[in-house]
């Protein structure tokens, strides 16, 4: 431990000289500046992908529980397609293969392609959780809603989903934290997020331990912040007695 060198973060990325304030000026950047900007990319990719994943995941999860066979098929097909292909392969498909088939995609920034890839990959997993949440409810609830004259959308909106979403908040929390960690594959398509920073900066500075520890801390902070936010939401929306084991 004696030979650790935390000054590495204060080094200028051009000439490797230590900058006294640790932040670069006049267009120069230090490794600390670079790492913070990389953190920004990681957070942006993660949050936007999470939004995409929640929208498509919820939609597909709901479709899989509807009485319509074709909608169930659509939801199932979507889920199986996106969860049976490895994430890195999906990212490569979005980045290299699809633009070869659809030339217009060539001009789409790789950031948006990664958000789409990561978002849709995670949507398959969220769809599975939403389906499980809805199916965990007693059949009688759906029937009761229909019996008092609710349409199908109303049944979901006012009866099934409010309970299903409360039930699946814990697995959704894990999934949201996973998205932060999975965002590290974005380095493969040239997004300068934390993993790309780590791979590159440790090569340039030969201080791999310090760089990886810095990056690890930022990943942990990000994922843990998401955990705390969702934990807060879980507590706020809790309805006492609604979920059987909710004896908190």
């Amino acid at each position, binding site marked *: 431990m004696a030979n650790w060198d935390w000054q590495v973060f204060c080094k200028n*990325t*051009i000439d490797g000289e230590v900058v006294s304030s640790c932040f670069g000026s006049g267009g120069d950047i230090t490794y600390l500046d670079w790492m913070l900007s990389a953190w920004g990319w990681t957070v942006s990719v993660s949050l936007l992908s999470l939004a995409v994943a929640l929208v498509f995941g919820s939609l597909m999860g709901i479709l899989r529980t509807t009485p319509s066979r074709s909608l169930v098929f659509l939801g199932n097909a979507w889920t199986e397609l996106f969860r049976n292909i490895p994430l*890195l392969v999906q990212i490569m498909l979005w980045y*290299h293969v699809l*633009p*070869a088939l659809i030339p217009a995609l*060539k001009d789409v920034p*790789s950031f948006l392609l990664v958000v789409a890839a990561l978002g849709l990959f995670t949507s398959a997993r969220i769809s599975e959780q939403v389906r499980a949440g809805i199916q965990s409810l007693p059949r009688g609830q759906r029937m009761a809603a229909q019996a008092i004259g609710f349409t199908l959308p109303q049944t979901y909106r006012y009866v099934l989903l409010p309970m299903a979403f409360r039930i699946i908040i814990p697995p959704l929390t894990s999934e949201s934290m996973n998205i932060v*960690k*999975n965002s*590290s*594959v974005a*380095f*493969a398509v*040239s997004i*300068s997020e934390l*993993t*790309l920073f*780590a*791979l*590159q900066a*440790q*090569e*340039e*500075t*030969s201080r*791999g*331990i310090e760089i*990886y*520890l810095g*990056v*690890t801390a930022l*990943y942990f902070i990000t994922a843990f912040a998401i955990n705390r936010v969702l934990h807060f939401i879980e507590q706020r929306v809790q309805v006492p007695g609604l979920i059987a084991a909710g004896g908190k």
Partner: protein
Amino acid sequence: MNTKSIFSAALIVAALAATPAFAQDSGTLKKIKDSGGATMGVRESSGGLSFTLGDGKFAGFHVDLCERVLADIRKQLGMSQMNIKFQPVTSQNRIPLMQNGTIDIECGSTTNNTARQKDVAFAVTTFVEEVRIAVKANSGITSIGQLNGKNVATTTGTTSVQLLRKHERANGVDFKEVFGKDHADSFLLLESGRADAFVMDSQILAGLIAKSKTPGDYKIVGEILNVEPINIMMRKDDPAFKKAVDDSLIKLMKSGEIAKIYDKWFLQPIPPANVRIGLSPSDATKAAWANPNDKPAEDYTKKCTANC
């Protein structure tokens, strides 16, 4: 991929913890003699220097040299046979694996620089790499000056990234950098048109072009952006082993044998695809063979700023 970075970090931490234990070790030669074998660190895909043939077999210029060096060491130690194991390494783990004793000699494509000399030792320079630009032959680009505002590809985790940044700063040009996750990926960026140029070590560029579907569509152009010695790597503070390796390499250099070995890997068709890389030894490489030395990359840069 996240697990990969964590894993690398764990390896580095483990290596750090293990280092003091090996400081008291009585050297690699004794280890080879006692264990009856040596472990060679090799690369999966480093152009003609070190690459896999599949099936756990590896070949290339540096692998070839290391096999000859180890054969000499076997004779020196009076062993009737030596069991040579291959251990694939990456840019991230090669130094920790050397320090913790997993590999005894690394025969890949490691740049010899002063930062690394603090952690490991290098044999005499056997190959000097020149960093250049590959473009599509019909692009009309002939120099780095024409890349202003263009997309320039390079590979994450290589010194070329820093080189580009320095160049950008020094000449006031503005590239849009795109990073491939490995060399094949960076070449794909050039091939698919996402990048207008690919900046990398010329032997890697030549190898990728030779292996591409239409080698005639690409060419290597422009000025030499950087010169770096690429050396066989070993553990630090083991003078007996370094001397044995250096002596063996210097013998190949003095006899001219090394030029023939170079010819075999860079100018003749090589497996697995049976294509030739077609890269003659650079003047700097020939100079290193004529005057064997283990000077770091920094010395080459100094020489360059004085002359050019």
